[in-house]
């Protein structure tokens, strides 16, 4: 029965992606995509943050530890930050997060960063589509951060 079930699960496999979106641009961009009825995969779980500068590296790690298959972080384009420099500071942080996670063996496409403005509803959908495709290709998070439990309650469903 195991095999059949696995096959069935593979068919309906949809990655779960934690999306941290900045309040002023990317979240509005996602909203615009919604208002404009732009289709994109329902794979992201949106978490609104005040600014991409608010992203703590631990958010990304925790999302991976809790079993997210991918992470998307998106903020205003550099130069457009509502708080002037939040995303400039974030940019260095993001580069290092991505680099370190890749260095310790997390597949490159699992953690994604982008800039999406409030006017880029269609582009937001494209970004989500792209990220979803690449994370789907990688399959479920069996990466090195996920807390794998030996049969207890902490195992993901």
């Amino acid at each position, binding site marked *: 029965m195991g095999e059949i079930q696995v096959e069935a699960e593979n068919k309906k496999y949809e990655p779960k992606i934690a999306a941290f979106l900045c309040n002023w641009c990317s979240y509005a961009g996602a909203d615009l995509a919604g208002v404009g009825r732009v289709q994109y995969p329902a794979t992201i779980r949106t978490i609104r943050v005040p600014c991409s500068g608010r992203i703590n590296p631990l958010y990304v790690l925790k999302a991976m530890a809790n079993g997210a298959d991918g992470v998307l972080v998106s903020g205003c384009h550099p130069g457009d930050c509502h708080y002037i420099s939040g995303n400039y500071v974030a940019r260095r942080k993001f580069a290092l997060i991505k680099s370190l996670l890749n260095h310790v063996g997390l597949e490159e496409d699992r953690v994604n960063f982008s800039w999406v403005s409030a006017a880029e509803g269609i582009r937001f959908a494209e970004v989500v589509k792209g990220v979803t495709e690449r994370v789907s290709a990688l399959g479920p998070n069996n990466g090195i951060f996920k807390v794998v439990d030996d049969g*207890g*309650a*902490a*195992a*993901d*469903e």
Partner: protein
Amino acid sequence: MKISKEKFGQAFDALVADYKVIAPVSDGSGIAFTEVKSFSDVKQDYLNSKLPPKAFFFPQHEKLMSYKKEGKDVTVKSELKVENTILFGIRPCDAKGMLLLDKVFKNDQYTDPYYYERREKAVIIGLGCTKIAPTCFCSSFEISPAGSEGSDLFLIDLGDSYEVEVVTEKGKALADRLALTELTADEQALVEKIKSAETPSKIDVSNTTSKLDKMFNSPYWDTLQEKCLGCNVCSFSCPTCHCFDISEEVRKNEGTRVRTWDACMAPLFTLHGSGHNPRDNKKARWRQRLMHKFNYFVHNNGSMSCVGCGRCIKSCPVNMDIRQVVDGANKAELVVE
């Protein structure tokens, strides 16, 4: 009595079918006690493991229970799992350490089932020390490097064979599976020689407890703790440290309650919910560590809670040496109050 190593190895391999067998194994960066399937995997020439074998009765991270919430209801399930276990190659210091932990996990009112049931289903095969590391100081605590106290079955390496001493009933049950023969006179002499050895390094603890009775307010603690980093290495590597934390791991409507090693050196150890912390500085914490091992424990249980294994000395990042610390307490001037 004795048994050849070859014969012992065969008997050992047969035991694997009936017991979970734990033995010292070289893991690249040192010796670790690990489950083994064959005597050939066992490292026979070693000083001692990096971490004490206490983890087999008191794991660093252990599930106490699990629960499932449904609406307002909850179902709770114990997570106690016990296997018949043999611990092979336990050094006399660690064997003594287990006797001390026994007193902690079964006090005048409560018995800790997680520790005790494992302990009762485990057989300790001790292995005498024929080589003594410079950090060893077990002789300070009336432990002999080749003493059988705390073991169920005790072996001394004689080269091609082991001298075998049956210490307890549990040990006897195992010994019945071994084809034992008599020692020769030469071997007997060698055993005597090994048994009479002491660790070259010794500290004088004869008056330490009574001295510490009067030292709670001593200025000794002020300078003692300065270089301590406050990490948990000494506690985690100690065969008698037993402090733990209980926390909850939750996923959706299910969770487990786990206990993990904790240490009195951690500032959060005694922090109240209100923010008050009775031991809010390193000085108080170091005093607690030393007092607990060399004073409080003696008053409560009749012996010191240190077995002289030297692990804390070896692994301390700043070379804080418990021998010097005790010695310093012995010599510290008492303040007249």
